[in-house]
């Protein structure tokens, strides 16, 4: 609930702040409405559960396709780590290397201007493995919001926050998962840079 409120406030604030901008700015520097782009994103993750301290980071890179000026779909490959604190609710703790991929849909709240707020949501598949080789497969969902900035027609930067939930079910390397599924929740600040070639087929 607190997260939803935070995202709503952030989105509304950015929308108000850029409302005038949308009217007065030209679109000559804006990225193409449709087409391929490549996005690099870094997300430091912080504790999201009130009783459990976790941290980690995600670095993601992948292609995307702008369906229109306001809709974009991206496939991001992820690498990073998660530190899981000891907890009675989970069978594992320690530091894990994380790998995965996520599919994400982004919606920009305005189609005009070089500064535009956005919200996004997606789902992905992830694996975490610790230094001892103990690993888990799982899936994840995330939602986010923030503001995008297009200073030129080939670059887009984005700053936002995202809530990230991963749930792990399978023990990698074992045919049967002999443990209770567990979830990792985190809130992160996302910073991304996109290259938009602007080449029209």
């Amino acid at each position: 609930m607190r997260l939803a409120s935070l995202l709503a406030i952030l989105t509304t604030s950015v929308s108000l702040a850029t409302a005038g901008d949308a009217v007065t700015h030209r679109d000559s520097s804006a990225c193409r409405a449709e087409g391929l782009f490549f996005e690099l994103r870094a997300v430091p993750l912080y504790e999201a559960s009130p009783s459990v301290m976790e941290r980690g980071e995600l670095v993601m890179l992948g292609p995307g396709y702008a369906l229109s000026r306001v809709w974009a779909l991206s496939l991001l490959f992820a690498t990073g780590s998660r530190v899981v604190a000891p907890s009675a609710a989970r069978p594992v703790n320690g530091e894990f290397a994380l790998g995965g991929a996520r599919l994400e849909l982004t919606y920009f709240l305005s189609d005009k201007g070089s500064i535009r707020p956005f919200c996004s949501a997606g789902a992905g598949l992830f694996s975490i493995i610790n230094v001892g080789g103990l690993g888990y497969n799982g899936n994840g969902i995330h939602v986010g919001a923030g503001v995008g900035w297009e200073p030129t027609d080939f670059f887009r930067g984005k700053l936002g926050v995202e809530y990230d939930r991963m749930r792990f079910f399978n023990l990698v390397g074992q045919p049967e998962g002999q443990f209770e599924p567990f979830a990792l929740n985190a809130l992160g600040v996302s910073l991304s840079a996109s290259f938009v070639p602007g080449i029209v087929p």
Partner: protein
Amino acid sequence: MVSDVNRRPLKKYALPPADFVVWRRDSQRFPFLPKEYEQGNPMTPILQGAFVMIRSAVVVIMLIGFFSVSWAVAGQDDSTHVLPGRIVLLSAITVGTVTAVHLYQARAWWEGPRAPFRFENDWVYALNIDKLGHAYGAYTLSHLFTYSMDWSGFSHSTSIYYGSVLGLAYQLYVEVEDGFHQEYGFSPGDAFSDVIGAAIPLAQERFPVLKNFALKWSYYPSTEYVDALRGGSGRVFIDDYQGQTYYITMDPHFLMGDHPPWWIPPWLGVGFGLAARDLQNTEARRRLYIFSLDYNFTRIETESSLLRSVFTVLDHFHLPAPGLVLDGSTVKLRLVY
């Protein structure tokens, strides 16, 4: 500690042989859904079926994708000069090549036991020479598809756009197959390199100054690889990272304005290369840095379209040239590297 260089070193959870049968059967499950969700769930057979279909359909999707691209683009106004005969020929060659390469890779890499799909970071593998290999592979494949579509009469922007898409698609298909293999796993780092390699041709098209730079590759079989072959090993040269060197080359003439010095021929370039040695020995393994002269074949003017094609292909390889090799604290001048 000595390990087999032909295998990624992160595999730490090999199963005992007795479990292999269970493992293989279990790999038909969709590994990212909880087992309790599957049990008694009427959707489970559908999910499992979809999972197997997705896994099996990767190659088919790629091949169909090529035809779809051809079909879609052929209908566009700016592609009226597309040559149907060449498209058919090119499609046939592509299908044949992809199938042959798939069979080759299946024998070389994926013959061992399969496993449920998983991701696995391998940032320490082969001192990241493999990452350069992935980027180079995507870059070269993207160019190959681009040249082929150019030849078929597509507009250059169309060729380079779909060339990059197809190059990346093929590289990711290889990575997905790795994800199902017990010894490998889907490497996000490899995927990063694939994405970067496929994006380079698009960046070069967007910023023409980048066309003065290129990725190149040279190979000389390492002693370990030759010994392994003589010992009957089924290793493939693509995995012989000790024999490979990856270069970023530059045509310096763009820095010299309209009147470059007469003593620098137009085909002469420079390159910075990266290689690795003694990868099987974790104590002695190290990177080599190479500063070398290079040949820009595409700067050689010719009226022959055949020669131009040959030069274009050659321009993806670094041929032996004088260079400086930095090996640890030692610098060596090599007349041929």
